[in-house]
């Protein structure tokens, strides 16, 4: 097991290298440059000569391969450079936002997965029942509601009309209020983020379980005389969760940038807003840092998914950790 994890982490090094190489060249081939972005909306007020001067100061006049070499050299020493926009260390900027993003997204993912699993499985077990129809309808409804719209409506209802919850931010200004204050500010963004993803997951869980239920071994289990409870809990659910876990692992990385709209509406200082902003302002060092972090999340997400799948299904022995044992039927 440990050997497997170490090997997987070693394989991820070239993966991250290729990611950084592609990202660097793609980012630098986009139109616009950081000097221009400094001027914001009235770009025409900056002279060409000042743009050129600032480009030179930032080292952007050098061949791109040299720029990449410099960046890579720094990255290997753990230095991701300084943000063009505010001059702070990129690692520091990202770390100041990462906890916020992780809290918001893990809470939303947890809520969403829990609900989606229960609803999706119930719907599959009771296929074509009232419950199935309601959940299918709601799944499509939530899937088609734009998240920013839901966010605005929920602010109007819960903050403006009812006055129950704060409309934006992560805490009251000045930090007074402590844990309860933080939690109050989390309710709306977590709710909206969970609801905006739950539709597709409900459908996914449902069809995954239906697929399992139609397998021959389900028929065998019934023929053996197992109770419905035993069939579902010991055989069906576990197997149905495997594709779901893989899917969650793959989308783990979207935790970073996926919440952008929600973050913007709720003025939530997370990585999504930071990444979009750094792209818009051509803040290359910051954008590279964010891309690299996304790469790390992809690697970790897939690794976790593999480990979890192996635990769910003992037939899927972790590759290379032990000799493959023939599936027992």
């Amino acid at each position, binding site marked *: 097991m440990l050997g497997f994890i170490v090997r997987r982490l070693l394989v991820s090094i070239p993966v991250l290298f290729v990611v950084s190489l592609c990202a660097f060249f793609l980012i630098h081939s986009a*139109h*616009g*440059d950081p*000097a*221009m972005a*400094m*001027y*914001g*909306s*009235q*770009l*025409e*007020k*900056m*002279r*060409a*000569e*000042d743009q050129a*001067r*600032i480009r030179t*100061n*930032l080292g952007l006049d050098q061949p791109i391969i040299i720029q990449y070499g410099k960046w890579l050299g720094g990255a290997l020493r753990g230095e991701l450079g300084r943000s*063009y*926009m*505010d*001059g*702070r260390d990129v690692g520091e*900027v990202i770390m*100041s*936002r990462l906890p916020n993003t992780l809290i918001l997204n893990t809470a939303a993912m947890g809520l969403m997965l829990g609900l989606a699993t229960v609803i999706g499985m119930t719907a599959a077990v009771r296929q*074509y029942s009232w419950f199935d*129809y*309601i959940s299918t*309808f*709601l799944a499509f409804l939530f899937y088609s509601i734009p998240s920013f719209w839901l966010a*605005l*409506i929920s*602010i*109007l*209802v819960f*903050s*403006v*009309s*009812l*006055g129950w919850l*704060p*409309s*934006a*931010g*992560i805490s009251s*200004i*000045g930090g007074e209020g402590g844990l309860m204050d933080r939690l109050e500010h989390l309710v709306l963004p977590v709710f909206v983020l969970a609801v905006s993803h739950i539709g597709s997951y409900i459908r996914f869980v449902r069809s995954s379980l239906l697929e399992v239920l139609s397998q021959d071994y389900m028929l065998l289990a019934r023929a053996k005389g197992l109770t419905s409870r035993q069939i579902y809990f010991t055989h069906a659910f576990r197997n149905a969760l495997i594709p779901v876990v893989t899917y969650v692992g793959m989308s783990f990385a979207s935790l970073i940038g996926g919440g952008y709209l929600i973050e*913007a*509406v*709720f*003025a939530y*200082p997370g990585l999504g*807003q*930071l990444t979009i902003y750094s792209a818009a302002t*051509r803040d290359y060092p910051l954008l590279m840092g964010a891309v690299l972090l996304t790469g790390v999340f992809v690697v970790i997400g897939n690794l976790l998914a593999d480990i979890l799948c192996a635990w769910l299904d003992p037939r899927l022995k972790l590759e290379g950790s032990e000799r493959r044992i023939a599936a027992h039927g």
Partner: protein
Amino acid sequence: MYMSNAYKRICLLLTAIFLLSMLALAGCGKQSNSPAVSKTDPKTIVLGIENETEKLNPLFTDDHDDAIFLIFSGLTRFNEKNEAVPDLAESWEISPDQMMYTFKLRKDAKWHDGKPFTADDVKFTIDQALNKQNNTEINYRFEEIKEVQVIDANTVKIILKSPFPTLLNVMSSGMLPKHLLDGKDINNDSFNSNPVGTGPFKFAEWKKGQYMILTANKEFYRGAPKAEKIILKQLADPNVRAVQLETGEIDAALIDPMQVDRLSKVESLKVSRMTTADYRVMMYNRKSPLWQDVKLRQALNYAVDREAMVKGVLLGWGKPAYGPLQESWADNPSVNQYDYSPDKAKALLAEAGYKPGADGILAKDGHKLSFKITTFAHDPVRVAFANALSTQFKQIGVDAIPDPRERGSFNIGDVETFLLGWGSPFDPDDHTYRLFHSSQIGKWNYQNYKNDKVDVLLLKARQTADRSERLKLYSDFQTELANDPAFNFLAYLDVALVTNKKLSGIKERVLGHHGAGYIWNVEEWSKE
């Protein structure tokens, strides 16, 4: 069985739609009795801002950024009429040839860390602005300065390369403390997120992406501000700024004109229309052979219904434009304003030799009258202007194609026409010499405009001290600019400022672009 399922589904659908619409109604219906009093502390003013400052350092802003404006101050400041008046400098003398400015500094001004403000700081600030290693965009302001001499701790002499009346405007730039920044890398120094200035408010705390807290500078040389604290809250989404005004979580913010109707119904709020000097034009780039013919430019100026554009594109939040100095003391309203007249436009086009082709598009010598209106794709207002122009030009047989492009993907000086934004509420020299003098071709004169009369007038106006003489020169300049148009002037933009009624002391003045400067007299603001 099948029927009953379908029936159930329809019932469900209707129930769900009903429930959701109830939810939406709950949201809309209760607006008027929402808790719309100011929730913030009476000694604290909370401002909602769209974009956070990047670096809290006056070297890195060309607009008067709110936070920087509160923390820093300059030798001069702008009064209600946007004229430069004494601030850190208590007085100044200008040599008769307009080449030498001697500033007497206040003796009671201190940095927020208690150190006295001196002439060395002035020299240091100008040197840093001109230092090519600094990624500042305000260097151009000081380029006419030949030398800065520190006479004594409270006297500084600035010697110019050529007369430059805008110097008094330029000296409103915030001063930097030499004792904290000497020898440092100003681009990346931690000063930029923990600044020390001389302004009415001191920097206290900054939660990036959330808010910044500033506290009153009790020892401010112009008197302590009335409010004890100012909080700048970053709310990128205009809808959320509107909501927070309504709930009383913020006291003032600039909002999108789309929100005005809604917010003007909220009893606790006041909506103000603020005039700006920020205008939009279609620039005729003289590089294109089309625009060599003055009659064509004049014809297109007549072909624009500016009233309709203000209504359609700006939702009424603006006014028709006819010149670059409409919001200045130097305005000359008696120039040809090119009132909408398709007939005059057609007559001029005919005089210029254009005849309608088979497809209804005008043509001359086998060339169709067709051009692109290039603009920044990220600015919806400019794109809307380009589209509106295209429609209006089509009516007189001119084929103008809107061409929104990503910024940085083209050079403004290379396109046929460009939907340009410019304007400044300050000294008329600032935004006329740079834009229309032929010496600025390749710099800010993107349209490659060269008119000898204009050159002479603009140069003379910057070398003249007497205001009535300058007024005459600028009047003549505007007449000439209207006769030989460099631009097709479209509109000046207004901005909507919403404040809680509890907030008092707000004074209006003509603002810069994006409504920059509405907090210009913030030290007089208070809440009951």
